[in-house]
């Protein structure tokens, strides 16, 4: 190999100053997320069902209001009623959160991504920022529109609320935030699991299966465990009427939920550094 000398002049090409930045990666992640159909589908479902289910339930309640007994009328939680669609929206946002990273693994684009930006924490931060902001905006818009439309459909004589009603603004804003944080939990799970089906199963399991298991525990223990579960935290956030015995207050619950998200994202990030892509 020493017999041949370099056969061309190789003046090093001038590179721009500095280095690729978080902002470059945020732009790239934004392009990624808006150029696949799954994003449009999951966001479409989130908005449509998140608003539509609540509206439907409110319209039906209004129509049956006169036949409802006094007890049900008094305990009627108008804000929660209009936001009931968020319990479907949580799954579609979760699926988007999973796909944001799992689709990179299933298609192999993760290797193209890391070949152009090998600082993996920076890539992951960009992903979390882009997905987090998108999920936040979509979830809040869904929540607020669902609330206003639902209250409009309830109208007199049915009990209806405004944002200044007790707990209403918390339920509406907090409901959107709850969806967004759940989405980040899904993103964290998918970063750890790296498979679309596996991560979606884990996410759905946490929301649907864990409560069933908790319910099988002895009474007091069941209640103690139950209040730590994401779905319970979501219900408490949306509820504006009645006492929730033995659960966290809405914002403490939200704090617990945020801790889950942060822990999962930190674990996901550290695995991302350690594992081969």
């Amino acid at each position, binding site marked *: 190999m020493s017999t041949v000398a370099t*056969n061309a002049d190789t003046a090093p090409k001038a590179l721009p100053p500095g280095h690729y930045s978080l902002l470059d990666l945020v732009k*790239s992640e934004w392009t990624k997320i808006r150029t696949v159909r799954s994003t449009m589908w999951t966001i479409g479902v989130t908005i449509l069902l998140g608003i539509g289910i609540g509206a439907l339930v409110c319209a039906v309640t209004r129509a049956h209001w006169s036949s409802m007994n006094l007890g049900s009328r008094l305990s009627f939680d108008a804000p929660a009623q209009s936001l009931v669609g968020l319990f479907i929206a949580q799954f579609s946002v979760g699926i988007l959160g999973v796909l944001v990273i799992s689709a990179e693994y299933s298609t192999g684009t993760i290797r193209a991504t890391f*070949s152009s*930006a090998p600082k993996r924490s920076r890539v992951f931060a960009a992903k979390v920022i882009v997905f987090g902001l998108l999920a936040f905006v979509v979830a809040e818009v869904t929540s607020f529109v669902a609330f206003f439309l639902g209250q409009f459909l309830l109208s007199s004589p049915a009990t209806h609320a405004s944002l200044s009603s007790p707990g209403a603004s918390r339920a509406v804003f907090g409901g959107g935030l709850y969806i967004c944080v759940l989405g980040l939990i899904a993103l964290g799970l998918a970063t750890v699991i790296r498979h679309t089906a596996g991560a979606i199963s884990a996410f759905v399991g946490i929301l649907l299966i864990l409560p069933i298991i908790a319910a099988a525990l002895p009474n007091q223990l069941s209640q103690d465990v139950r209040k730590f579960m994401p779905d319970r935290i979501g219900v408490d956030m949306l509820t504006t009427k009645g006492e929730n015995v033995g659960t966290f207050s809405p914002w403490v619950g939200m704090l617990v939920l945020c801790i889950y998200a942060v822990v999962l994202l930190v674990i996901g990030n550290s695995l991302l550094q350690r594992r081969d892509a």
Partner: protein
Amino acid sequence: MIEAKGLTKHYGSKHAVEQLSFTVRPGYVTGFLGPNGSGKSTTMRMVMGLDAPTAGDVTVKGQHFDDLRWPLREVGALLEAKAIHPGRSARSHLKMLAQTNGISMARVDELLDVVGLTSVAGKRAGKFSLGMGQRLGIAAALLGDPEILLFDEPVNGLDPDGIRWVRNLLKGLAKEGRTVFVSSHLMSEMALTADEVVIIGKGKLISQISIDELLSQSTENYVRVRSPEAAKLKSALEHEGAVVALEDDGSLSVRGANEVAIGELAAKIPVVLHELAPQSASLEEAFMELTEDSVEFHGSTSTGANNSTGATS
């Protein structure tokens, strides 16, 4: 410049790459040859910082890949065909890569044109043929106009036209002074493209050698001679120090003397010659010869592949 020193990768008990050292220099096309499963792709992934070596080290431009300031502008790679989201268009795929390193959309469109995908740039990549996927991967590798280029089996799935295009592209890139490292399991392909080859088998280096040297070193170079007086010619040749074998069809295989020497000797004796044909080993044969002990997956009925590898250089 790509430099590997003692590069090693173990997956559990499987030794994918073992103590691999080689240098890929600028200005040349360096082929990376080995049978299937010999560790070529693993090595390339380690160069790109995607897989962490178990031991040893590999650098590009003297740096670790993840320390590069503008990775896409410094090293371009085609690692696998169709590593593309099937729902994303070719243009969007290149766009999201370009943005990571602040590369303009003008450059994206320029490259779509270079690889001939402009007319399908907006189509979903899932509908692409393997060949179109390769072209898109090549466009991605060239996006940052990098000094160093890695291609893993770039001609897979291309039609003859495409193969010729890739061949010329690789040579052209090397001529511009770039470092071009291209893997293949086809020696014949490398013979037409590469100046030099790094040959591995079972994850170990067998040889780093120029194509010309590889050919001349091969023991399969000989001259086939036919003569009605074969026996007479054979003894004369052996007298001159050549190694001569009498083949079943009556021809002679002469090693250690070229066609010129044999022809002159025949005239001097004199004997009549019916054929005087230099047989040069195909590179494919030379390659087989080098790697015969280190093929991971034998297609034949032979059992228990020998664990030793050929001479290292």
